[in-house]
């Protein structure tokens, strides 16, 4: 099993920026094939095209919650180009490290950010994308079930 750093605990117990940004400029949602969890990120830019606000929702373990929480803090004030450079290693480092078995939870963070940025670049965000995002997750969900079946 694993033991968490104080930073992970702190973010898990007092997660920052839980919820959804209103009228987001970017939306991303991912599911983890490894453990079957889901993470959703929404963000909004200010007039200088810097991230003004970011929020998350998570159906995941303590690491996933902490990773998302710290990510929403890390991206604020960054340009899209800067935010894009954030890797899961950066996220884990910001948490003082993650147990090896939980590194993939920080990968969720990196992926969700990628998705949200792609969404921002691809088309203006809106209610439609939100629906599509969910459909997309159910695809992932099916993939998970397939993976589980194959692993039996």
């Amino acid at each position, binding site marked *: 099993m694993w033991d968490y750093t104080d930073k992970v605990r702190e973010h898990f117990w007092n997660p920052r920026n839980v919820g959804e940004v209103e009228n987001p400029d970017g939306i991303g949602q991912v599911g983890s094939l490894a453990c079957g969890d*889901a993470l959703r990120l929404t963000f909004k830019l200010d007039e200088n095209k810097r991230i003004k606000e970011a929020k998350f929702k998570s159906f995941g373990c303590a690491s996933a919650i902490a990773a998302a929480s710290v990510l929403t803090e890390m991206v604020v004030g960054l340009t899209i180009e800067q935010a894009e450079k954030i890797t899961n290693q950066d996220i884990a480092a910001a948490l003082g490290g993650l147990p090896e078995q939980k590194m993939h939870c920080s990968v969720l963070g990196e992926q969700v950010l990628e998705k949200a940025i792609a969404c921002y670049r691809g088309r203006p965000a809106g209610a439609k994308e939100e629906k599509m995002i969910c459909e997309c997750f159910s695809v992932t969900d099916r993939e998970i079930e397939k993976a589980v079946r194959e692993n039996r």
Partner: protein
Amino acid sequence: MNRIYLDNAATTQAAPEVIEAIQTCFRETYGNPSSLHSFGLEARGVIESARRNIAGFINASSDELFFTGSGTESNNTAIKGIVYSLRGKGDHIVTTAIEHHAIHEPLHFLETQGLKVTYLRNDDNGQVDPDDLKKAITGETILVSVMHGNNEIGTLEPIKELGAICRERGVYFHTDAIQTFGHIPIDVREMNIDLLSASAHKLYGPKGVGLLYIRKGVQMTPLLHGGGQEKRLRASTQDTPGIAGFSRAVELAASEMEKEAGRQSRLRDKLIAALLEAVPESTLNGHPKLRLPNNVNMSFACVEGEAALLNLDMEGIAVATGSACTSTSLEPSHVLTACGMTHELSHGSLRLSLGRTTTEEEIDQVIKVLPPIIAKLRAMSPLYKKQGAK
């Protein structure tokens, strides 16, 4: 903060009487039980009286009882011991989909060596169908292993009936009784059991002491080879203090079991009813009636188990979960999956297992604390909002 321990299925706190017995033995009976001198004689006396006591508890005779170093070792010894000794006669074992890893893993190991294993399907409540067992047994079958009570969902299996089928077909029958031993009655003769595993730390005894009941006449290859202890079936200097503690734990169980099973079942049912009522989209896992007196296992949709567990821990309440995120393999509980549960629901499963010291006040506290935690986590969950909106 007064902490509330509701993880007695994982392990129990040794009873004060057990600690006392261990302590006394450490101080006074420290000889090696294999030694010829009086220190050895005294140690042997402690072990043999423990053996008689524990054998009597399950209606075995004392030469059918072997002490081991853990429940896992008992299971490994039973499975590998029968396979190595009967390999000439057949290469097939029947078990169920919801056994503990300490049964599945030795079987997987033996499968790499050519053993064939049939995993019986369990119904959604976790029970196996005796008819399925009848169909699964072939001329090649050398052993059937079905657990008495499941450690995750608490479901009890129809051991006596399964044992009778095996007896009739001339196949050895093993049961992993690690969750039931000391909690509900066991009679190895009446229940047609050939081999049975138990582990002391699940009944307020010490960790690191297990037992294997082997019906007289059953031949098997040892797992630990070495000295002549335990009639050559299990070499190693015996853990006299641990065995003395196990024996004391069994004495306590013998005197309290019936009363405790009643008391804990009542608290269990109260907790289940209250949570089903207070938390929307919650379900009970395992059999509604035929379950361990101390086991509550519930799923809360769209909530991740580890997050719920850690939130409860913050409130001083210790529970377990079958979530994939907490297993080192990142797979959801094979037990919940085998009972037909979706990935999503098994993710949000919590097991609360009561014990001898669990009080009604503690249960009330859980009933108060758990629902808001679930609500808080659902508010964070990207899945729940959607469902709520439906």
